């Protein structure tokens, strides 16, 4: 059982080594001649104004919350989807109806967010 996953670990190890090699290769190959101007933040040739670590619009936070709510539902649907045909042959339409009820409840929440203007960006 576990030996299925040995290739996965090999791939992950290989990817880490390769990614680190690529990122550090220019440290080895490229020149290092830093000047204060070169190291300043790019702002179309102007002197950088203000800091970047300020507040971010709450809209993005809302998107993140909606994502967590709706993406969790995906995880509930997957096991049902994988076993659907077997369960349908055993117990019939109630397998479908129960998931339909679940999706309708999800859709009600979706409609509520929609009505409240959760998907509006101006």
């Amino acid at each position, binding site marked *: 059982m576990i030996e299925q996953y040995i290739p996965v670990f090999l791939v992950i190890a290989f990817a880490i080594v390769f990614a680190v090699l690529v990122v550090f290769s220019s440290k080895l190959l490229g020149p290092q001649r830093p000047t204060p101007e070169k190291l300043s933040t790019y702002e179309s040739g102007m002197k950088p104004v203000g800091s970047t670590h300020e507040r971010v619009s709450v809209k*993005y936070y809302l998107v993140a919350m909606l994502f967590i709510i709706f993406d969790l539902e995906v995880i509930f*649907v997957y096991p049902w989807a994988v076993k659907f045909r077997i369960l349908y042959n055993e117990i019939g339409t109630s397998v479908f109806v129960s998931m339909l009820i679940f999706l309708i409840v999800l859709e009600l929440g979706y409609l509520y967010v929609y009505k409240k203007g959760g998907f509006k960006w101006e």
Partner: protein
Amino acid sequence: MSLLQLIGITAVKILIIFTMMMLTVSYLVYFERKISAWAQNRLGPNRVGWYGLLQPFADVFKLALKEDIVPTNANKPIHTLAPVIALFVAFTTYAVIPFGPDISLFGITIPLVVADVNIGILYVLALSSLGVYAITLAGWSSGSKYSLLGGIRSSAQMISYEVSMGFSVAGVLLFAGSLRPAAIVLSQHGWMWNALLQPIGFITFVVSAFAETNRLPFDLPEAEPELVGGFHTEYSSMKFAGFFLAEYANMIIASALIVTLYLGGWQVPYIESIGLPAGLVIAIQIISFFAKIAFLLFFFIWVRWSIPRFRYDQLMSLGWKVMFPLSLINIVWVAGLIMIFRL
């Protein structure tokens, strides 16, 4: 198969796939520039080598020999970590995608997939969502406003489309009854391609794949007229190349996923029944897999020059108001097909 054999075979497969991937990425960049040039009635790269064929190598060497600049405002460890994550995601996701049927060499049955795990689809979804971290951290750690805006926009965009992507995949799982990519490919025998049986899910998945890979018309994270370079404004030399490489590798993986989930994977309809020798059939199947990927990659570039970039609010409302309900309808549609036609 002993443990040592398994490790040896896996290492060979990783090396083959990896080399092919790097070559495809290089030439994808070349072909993107060539096709863009044709679309705009210009010549494109034609100086380095015959018809500019050595251009990708010239670009890589040039980037490797450039100075690696870390701005003073940047958060140095995270600024370095971000491209590592991007590359890591790009080079792990391909592991579970089958590119051919099982073959037997010297009495050993070798599946033509690097890791034949039974949770393959979950593996792909889990790793590809890590890609959000690379872009968000790159944008946040650079200490530049362009990068920050690009990074935040991109994280919002990617997580929005991930929801409809997840629901579209549920439709495929309904038919296949398994999370193993090899089983999903086999469930699409003959003309039972998921693209034909569930066209709604196919469309929502392809659109989400475009959004997840930050390709036009959804490339707002790096929309150059407003955000300069977006999240990689403050990156130079190989760190920039890392993001670039990861973007193109992600395009290839997205195409491979679309082929595996919706276009029958490596299968050619009814080829087994013609009566060709077994070796030839397998060769045709492997070639057909790569031909399908090549067509989808061309499609990516084609769309780039056909559809203008979305505005940000259009992008978000397309994701939440159109793609999300459509992907739910797709689940009901597929479940209905299974119940009515006993497919």
